[in-house]
């Protein structure tokens, strides 16, 4: 049958879609980490004003559906700021990053709070400043504790990227739809698209599990208390 030949023809087109999807994933996890970790530190250790600002951020980006956020930024906020020319991909990466950051802030906040008071007390008793204690004692432990929960963000974010279809980011799903509307065959193409998502999911999760094993410290193994 000529489905195979058809797929081979479209392969470079789909592959570019995979790259854009992965780009969105990396942006979401990376930007999310860069925003989420400091946000969590601010929520746990910040002044009341800092906590209030971060709480509003987390509330906003967790409180709105991703699709609404994308529309709001792509059709509203970016054009209003005179940034209407920014590519859908960049807007998508930006929104996924802020969205992911809000969720990651909650993951890291939980991890920070799970660390016993005694760790800070001991660090301060040795003459460390609060900042040193957070940086050298609290944070490394919080990251170890947060890793399994953080890994769980990967499949969530990977599937979320497909919503960027709605603002015209030419990622995997968008390209699959282009093929469908060009070739008039829906099911096989969407099945291939689904298969690619599942493979990306599997590989990413495997990689993260390897990372968890690699950095594991006795007393912090996932699944142990």
């Amino acid at each position, binding site marked *: 049958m000529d489905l195979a030949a058809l797929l081979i023809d479209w392969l470079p087109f789909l592959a570019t879609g995979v790259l854009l999807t992965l780009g969105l994933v990396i942006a979401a996890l990376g930007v999310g980490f860069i925003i989420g970790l400091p946000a969590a530190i601010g929520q746990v250790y910040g002044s009341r004003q800092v906590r209030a600002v971060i709480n509003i951020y987390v509330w906003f980006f967790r409180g709105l559906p991703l699709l609404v956020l994308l529309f709001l930024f792509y059709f509203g906020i970016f054009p209003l700021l005179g940034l209407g020319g920014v590519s859908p991909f960049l807007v998508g990466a930006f929104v996924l990053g802020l969205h992911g950051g809000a969720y990651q802030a909650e993951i890291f906040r939980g991890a920070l709070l799970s660390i016993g008071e005694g760790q800070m007390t001991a660090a301060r008793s*040795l003459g460390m400043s609060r900042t040193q204690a957070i940086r050298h004692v609290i944070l490394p432990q919080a990251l170890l504790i947060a890793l399994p929960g953080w890994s769980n963000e990967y499949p969530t974010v990977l599937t979320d990227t497909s919503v960027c279809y709605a603002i015209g980011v030419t990622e995997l799903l968008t390209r699959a739809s282009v093929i469908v509307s060009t070739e008039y065959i829906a099911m096989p193409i969407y099945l291939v698209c689904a298969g690619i998502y599942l493979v990306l999911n599997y590989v990413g999760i495997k990689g993260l599990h390897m990372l968890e094993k690699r950095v594991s410290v006795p007393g912090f193994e996932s699944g142990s208390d």
Partner: protein
Amino acid sequence: MTTDDTILRVEGLAKSFGTTEVLKEVSFTVRKGETKVFIGPSGTGKSTLLRCINQLIVPDAGRVYLHGEEVTHAGARINHYRAKIGMVFQNFNLFDHLTAIRNVEIALLKVKGMKEDEAREKALFELRRVGMEDRADHYPAQLSGGQAQRVSIARALAMDPDVMLFDEPTSALDPELTGEVLEVIRGLARAGMTMLIVTHEMRFALSIADELLFMEHGTILERGAPGDLATSPTFERTRQFTGRFADL
């Protein structure tokens, strides 16, 4: 009372939590090489007293002087003073993500600004001193309670403190593990370390203390040489408390 070899002076320390007065005007001085042991029923402010000395708990009133310099109201300089006041906790509070030797090293690197190899050498020396050299690369989760407490003593000693505060160092340990920790503390006393110890180990208290202080309801009810306090206390309450242990 105040002589040249006074290391620590505590004047009128007071602390309340809500309406509960945990410490009421506690005062004493500590001479170089002296071991003071605080005994008394639970909840009488002994641990709070130790934590007020290094300002882990900020007292409501009173002053603490280390070598004549005021530690209370020290602002940012408090870190400088805390580095000279070693503290050992009931629950060890080892840094769980670091091996034994890294636990001892970290404050040397980050607070004292030592070089890596210098800190490693010092940490190994301190671990040897508490008999934990062979467990240097173990994580806290891989240590017994007694071993963990010995590492935490090494961590405090590595800072070369002027005085060591022990907050019930054996209360979280099985009876068969307390011995090894008490032996390390005895060794420090022999080496001339200045120490304040809060403990419920009466026999240990009697044998190691230069001065025994009986605390109740946030005050030092009675103090003196351990022999005197145990055999001929002034207060009936002290007799009741120490007498219980004499029977053991």
